[in-house]
């Protein structure tokens, strides 16, 4: 069963909201404990989520 365009957009936006709400905490954890790669991946996802909002909203 395929989702409607509105439902898809809602789910993506919900996912970005969750990412933006949780990743800063993960980023802090990574930076404070020296997990460099985790920090890089987390910050990249964080910024990509925001870029998605600029490009696709």
């Amino acid at each position, binding site marked *: 069963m395929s989702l409607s365009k*509105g439902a898809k957009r*809602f789910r993506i*936006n*919900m996912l*970005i*909201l969750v990412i*933006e*709400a949780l990743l*800063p*905490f993960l*980023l*802090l954890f990574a*930076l*404070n404990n020296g997990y460099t790669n985790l*920090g890089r991946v987390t*910050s990249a996802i*964080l*910024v990509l989520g*925001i*870029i998605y*909002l*600029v490009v696709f*909203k």
Partner: protein
Amino acid sequence: MPEVKNSPVFGAISYNCSPMELTPGNWLLSSLPILTVIILMLLFKWGGLRAGAMSWLVAAAVSLIAFGGSWLILAWSQVKALVLALNMLVIIWGALLLYSLASEVGTIRAIGLFLPRLSNDRSIQLLMIAWLLTSFLQGMGGFGVPVAVCAPILVGMGYDPILSIIMTAIGHGWAVSYGSMATAFESLIAVSGVPGLLIAPYAAILLALSFVPTGVIITFLGTGWKGVRHAFPAILTVSLTMGTTLYLLNTLGLWSLSTIGPSLVGIATLFLLTRLPAYHGVRTAIANGGQELSPRDLLLRLTPYILLVVIGFSVILIQPLNTFLNQVGISFKYPEIISGLGFVTPAESSATIHPFSHPGTVLLVSVLLSSILLKRKGLITRTSPRRIVSVTAHNAVDASLGVVMMAGVSTIMTHVGMTSTLARGIAETINGVIYPVVAPFVGVMGAFLTGSNNNSNILFGALQAEAAALLKLNVPLILAAQNAGGSLGSVMSPTKLIVSCTTVGLGGQEGKVLRKMIGYGLIPIIIVAVATGIWSWLLSSGA
């Protein structure tokens, strides 16, 4: 800027800790995130969320490249932004839920039927809803509630959705400062170290000066110049009674009642005026598709709002209950943050959130209790809850993302010294004659950026006090101007517009709304600015 390390001001705000050199280039870079939002929304008609996300990217890039920012600072900024946003989001989610419930049970239509019984005069109806009811709701609910509740009512009465947002937003602009237990005004007192009773008389008069223009703008937008001419005596009378109440409450130190009190007096005054033949309008049969609600049906459908008023009032005004509910408070501790260029943000705690007396909780409890009551009366069916939650969730996601983005822009700018550079640039380059006129606009800038009069006062209250002292101006007057500017300007912030637009089905069109709104929204602010300039000149010339 003088050293004021002993001032309570700079214990919390780190303007003087800034080693940032104030140059035109730095100042311009600091203003880029705000300019981004304004240009994208006004010129390119971008939605608030999209413009906010772009502004976040600009703020992050500028902070990393030119202001000594780091990923650690960005992470802390975003964590602080989330806590800041959560305080607003709980209210927004509650307001959206209340609105969805009201739509489901036909409350909006019921209000549309009730108003003609009060008065058939369109201008009086408009003033009652867009000016006085919004102001009253601001006194209880604060962030987003007045527009979220009242704009859909105006749309239900047949007004254009964009105009409905503009009228309700401008209508409660004056009330923001003293709404939600006067949090914004208390913050101003705390950061400036100036006693509230010294600021209060100036603050009351400056805000009261916005009453007549506010009433005129609402009536003009809804009914044109003919309506303004017709309603002007009513606007003047309500302004006088509200202004007197505001002044008395403020000078008595009762500023936690300085929104609810004047609003109630304004509602009572306008109600009395509707008894006059000139404002009763033409009595016609209440036609709504051939239906008329009985008083019992009407009351039943108004349950969500009646409960909101009763619970909100009880929580604020019944002191033992307020004290009991405020026993639980949540606050977060943050460490000292130092940017790569040495800008220090001292270790601090977040504002305490009282979950049991929070306006968001009041909204949620109102929704729950009215749902139980309305279900018993058969107005809520088995499928209703699913529909209400679904509509709320769809509206809430975009609004929440927008608020988080704008809060993020504000915290990034604060933590690398961009905000202080921006404000210092204004304070240090403008002379003592012009500064009083500019002071309200500094408040507007803070409120536009953060979506909150409270945050504007926290960001710029200290700076305004220091600048006024340096320029030998009357400090309480300048602080009152900051407060008035923040209050009147906050209603035009993208953060609030995102919430407002969501409730009337204009999600993503915030740029279009802001473009139409800004001209009208600036009128009361310009009046306050000119009044501050004249008052300051009179004080300094010893008149």
